[in-house]
């Protein structure tokens, strides 16, 4: 983080074209589990259509609608078996669909989310939201990694960090993840926490960790406020294609009082469109390679690293290497990484 202002370093051999990423061999949290019943629902992962439904209590995921005739059982895509079925799993209140060679799918590769119940039991509907972003997923991930935009885009909702006693950002990474932690000491209590959460103190400390799985744009956040509440939440950005994405967000606010725990998830519908207002026009601006390289400030360290890691993953996959390196098994326990209290 100490490096001076600079242009993208020479590590970046090619321009940054976020719409071109199509990383495979990963689980996508395509739907809230409570949205999938006996009637099929349609979802899209990287432009692949996927129908989800339950049959006698069994979860099904298929490239074909169950009512579609099955005669033409020619291979539908490389992502499904001869029946047109995707590997599917249910965990943490989500329905996960494997995007990659179906033979390689394994529940052992499902990511670890320490603050959600594995069986998804007890997650109330009000702790779930679904937001659409009119941009490609990597641009949304950059937006989450980036902290300096909050004052400008989300001023009224969040804010106050500017007046803190100290504000530090750290990040670390593996070949498959990037983790960013922000530690703020003595910032004014945020408006939502004061007025809805009833936190009467004037100042609070704040530590927020964001852990990103690169292949599936899975963003696991663990913000902790003291005094105040923890707001752990998951944002899996599922690319609809190159230009749009959909996020099924789940919060765990069991430690927070009513009405804060009901109101907080709704904030996603305020903050999401604010982020979308920039993500949307950014997407077409990143479609061509001819454009000038982006400039970076010293606050862009995590974002610049994210670009490098994504390009490296893409390069490996283009060479046919889809394996997970030893430093980054997706199911690795991340409780410590997130700074979870026991």
């Amino acid at each position, binding site marked *: 983080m100490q490096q001076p*202002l600079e242009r993208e370093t020479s590590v970046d051999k090619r321009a940054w074209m976020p719409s071109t990423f199509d990383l495979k061999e990963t689980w996508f949290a395509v739907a809230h589990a409570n949205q999938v019943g006996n009637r099929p629902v349609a979802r899209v992962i990287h432009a692949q259509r996927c129908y989800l439904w339950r049959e006698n209590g069994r979860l099904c995921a298929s490239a074909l609608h169950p009512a579609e005739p099955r005669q033409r059982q020619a291979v539908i895509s490389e992502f499904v078996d001869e029946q047109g079925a995707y590997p599917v799993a249910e965990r943490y209140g989500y329905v996960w669909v494997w995007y990659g060679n179906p033979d390689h799918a394994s529940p052992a590769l499902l990511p670890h989310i320490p603050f959600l119940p594995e069986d998804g039991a007890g997650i109330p509907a009000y702790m779930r939201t679904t937001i659409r972003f009119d941009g490609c997923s990597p641009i949304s991930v*950059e937006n989450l990694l980036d902290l300096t935009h909050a*004052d400008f885009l989300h001023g009224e909702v969040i804010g106050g960090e500017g007046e803190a006693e100290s504000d530090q950002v750290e990040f670390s990474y593996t070949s498959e993840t990037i983790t960013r932690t922000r530690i703020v000491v003595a910032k004014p209590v945020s408006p939502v926490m004061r007025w809805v959460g009833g936190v009467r103190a004037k100042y609070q400390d704040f530590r927020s960790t964001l852990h990103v799985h690169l292949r599936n744009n899975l963003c696991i956040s663990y913000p902790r406020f003291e005094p105040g509440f923890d707001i752990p939440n998951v944002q899996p950005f599922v690319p609809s294609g190159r230009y749009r994405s959909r996020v099924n967000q789940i919060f765990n606010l069991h430690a927070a009082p009513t009405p804060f725990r009901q109101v907080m998830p709704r904030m996603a519908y305020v903050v999401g469109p604010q982020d979308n207002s*920039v993500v949307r*026009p950014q997407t077409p601006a990143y479609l061509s390679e001819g454009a000038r390289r*982006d400039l970076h400030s010293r*606050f862009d360290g995590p974002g610049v690293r994210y670009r490098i890691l994504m390009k490296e993953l893409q390069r490996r996959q283009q060479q046919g290497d889809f394996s997970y390196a030893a430093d980054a098994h997706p199911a690795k326990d991340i409780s410590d990484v997130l700074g979870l209290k026991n």
Partner: protein
Amino acid sequence: MITGQWLAVLPSIAVPAQTPVAVVIGELPVVLFRDADAAVRALLDRCPHRRVPLSLGKVVNGALRCAYHGWSFAGENGRCTDIPNVGKENGVPASFCVDAYPTHECDGLIYVWIAPTPSGPLPLPRAADPAAAVTQFGHGNAAISYEHYRAVLLDGPELIFDIPGVRFTDFYLGDAELRHGKMVFECEAEWGSAHRPAKVKVTDRPLILRTELSAEHDQVIFRLLSTANAELGCLELHFTRGPRSTTHYCWRYTQTSRHLTGRPWRQKWLTLNSPAIRVHNRHDGGDIAKLLVGPSANYNDLIAPAAATRQEN
């Protein structure tokens, strides 16, 4: 990219103080705003940090501040003057900048030169008429390509604009000719509604519409004249390539009296609530398709050679 000429892109009134305005010239997104001295500035409408349109931002202390992370840019040279929290002592490197384009504002129109330094003359605005009783401005994008828009201007001005109470005809008085670097020709016009066909049994029509298409600039001047050559109204229309084969246009209209001099009472009454002019932003494809070819057939012989030298500037 469109270079080699000053382009009138917007009327001055379309760029208020404090609010940046986006316009696309050719395929190039440009943002216009007013700095601390109210001077119009033009920058590439794309933040060099994360490519967000600068037109989503705000003007703060005369600089344009990006909506996303608050980087600020000076209008005169595009230099990034502030990155929040970076601290003035570290400074922002001089190389941090966005493309800036020279601007010029006169007689209610804003001109932009799409290159770092201008190297050509401003289009001669039709001498500003201090006595004008009516002045109107406008701008828009026509869903028709630049070349065809120019041809329609010449062959069917009634498809481009309408002066309520005046009916243009395509009865040409003589042929198009080159006069002072402009392609000039005249048509008869008369009092009446544009929606009704021209009268057949007329010996003398009381009005003339003179079209003057500049070879040097994408500018056309239409003058509504009496048969005694007195100017009643004048439309100065600038047009340039817009994105996706549209044509961006920007215009200024002046009229010497509140009601066109000599307009019969019946027309006066019928047009009481009409604006002095309407420049259409929607065009009927059927009307354009069936438009007879007229003076546009002479464009190539008359002024294309002059226009071509301009493009190479």
